């Protein structure tokens, strides 16, 4: 999965970003941008709804911001710390929902950033880089879960054209993943 990792790595040293954010919390935005997709992908795969995924992801970053001063650099990727917080939050939700412990945050934490999570994060980033019309179709189709007809009506184009855009977008994603130029 090395190509995917490359796609989400920043050229800037992460440690410097963390230290900068610890000195000035408004610099936290860089850490957020660098890690959002992986945290969201990790959470979204483990909760049943988009609302819950957004809720937990927001909580993860709020907690990370509040606890950033406590973070000690020990060579572990910052995203692992974020995933750890996410794991605890997911575990708490499950406990609340089921009334007993099904899984602990520690257990989820050991899952870490899996290949699936990385791949998911890469796809999310690649979607952002699609041509605007293709990106719009993908967003409407998959995020908003609209039908081809609804999208065609909204964009004032034929259904066949929307299907073509949908096909091209996914084909582009496939080619970029294959080539590792994400």
């Amino acid at each position, binding site marked *: 999965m090395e190509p995917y990792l490359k796609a989400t790595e920043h050229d800037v040293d992460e440690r410097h970003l963390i230290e900068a954010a610890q000195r000035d919390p*408004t610099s936290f935005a860089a850490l957020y941008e660098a890690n959002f997709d992986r945290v969201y992908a990790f959470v*979204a795969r483990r909760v049943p709804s988009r609302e819950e995924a957004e809720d937990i992801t927001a909580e993860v970053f*709020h907690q990370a911001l*509040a606890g950033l001063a*406590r973070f000690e650099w020990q060579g572990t990727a910052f995203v*692992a710390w974020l995933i750890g917080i996410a794991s605890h939050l997911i575990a708490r939700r499950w406990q609340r929902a089921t009334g007993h412990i099904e899984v602990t945050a520690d*257990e989820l934490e050991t899952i870490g950033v899996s290949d699936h999570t990385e791949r998911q994060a890469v796809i999310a980033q690649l979607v952002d880089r699609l041509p605007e019309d293709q990106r719009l179709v993908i967003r409407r189709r998959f995020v908003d879960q609209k039908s081809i007809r609804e999208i065609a009506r909204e964009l004032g184009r034929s259904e066949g054209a929307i*299907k073509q855009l949908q096909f091209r977008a996914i084909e582009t994603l496939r080619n970029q993943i294959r080539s590792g130029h994400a």
Partner: protein
Amino acid sequence: MPSYEIEQLDAAINALLAGQTLEALRNDPQLLPMTEIASQLHLTPRSEFRAGLRDELLAHASMPPAGRVFDASLAPSTHPQLKSRMVHDSVFPPLFSTGVSMLPVRGSHLAVSFALHVAALAIVFTSGWWMVENRTVVRKQIASRFSGTIDYLLPSSPGELHGGGGGGTQDKLPPSRGSAPRFSDQQLTPPAVIVKSDAPKLAAEPTVIGPPEVKLPQLGQTGDPTAAILTPPSNGTGSGSGIGTGEGGGVGAGNGPGVGEGRDGGIGGGVYHVGGGVSAPRTIFDPDPEYSEEARKAKYQGSMTLSLIVDSEGHPRSVHVVRSLGMGLDEKAIEAVSKWRFEPGLKNGQPVAVQIAVEVVFRLY
């Protein structure tokens, strides 16, 4: 761009959005990579959410630190203690935490399982050690052979008495069980279970012909020693007075005034020695005797001899101790030998009962 593929992909996306799994859509290998990507697209975040959260965080970051409350219990991995625990978790997760699996996994479950396995291993090792420490070897050997009667569990005749006797009064019932009367050199009155004349003119004690020095076991009531226990009183179906199914004034199935098979008095049936046409019984099932706890504790060992009759069906009968060892080992030997099975000894190709002796050696190592 082939329109067929466009339609196929759209159909697959419709199915995915309707809740079908990717597994159900694997039938088109050409479209599969694209279908796989499509199956992950619904997990992409909303761009509005991403941007909104960023703005929200920046707003919070601009607030004084007191306005940001961190839940310390969520801090997962940068503290050395927690990090150390994570290492344990990755090595042996359910022991130190609960786990995700098809079934609920808890640390307590694993601890109980671990304890049970340790206990089982301890039992295996302890029993193995005990077996090594308390190894016993029991050697069995048919040491000598004795002669014996075939059907009658009577004392062996001391000499070359090949006689026997039989009788009966032609009753409809078989002879009833009892003791044969004593041996005498002459017979004035043949034995009878049912005496035909209650007031004989000359009363005389019933006897059978045989060596007077041989004492027959006395069971109380006169009768045939081999008869069934529950038979009503009867002199038997034989003839010529006496008791039994034979002829003459004796007891049993023979002919004459003696007892048992054969003729001309004495004890019938004779004695069978191995050799001279009689083969030795051979064991076909001979479980080892157990060591008695008392003897094992005392580390007592030695040999003892049993005598038994192997009947014509190969079953041991009349097992008794000839040379005792004690410490409960005699009983253990009798218990085991009584379960043995033999190929019976043969005489003229016919299975016959043969009395044998078995030497059992108990040894501790």
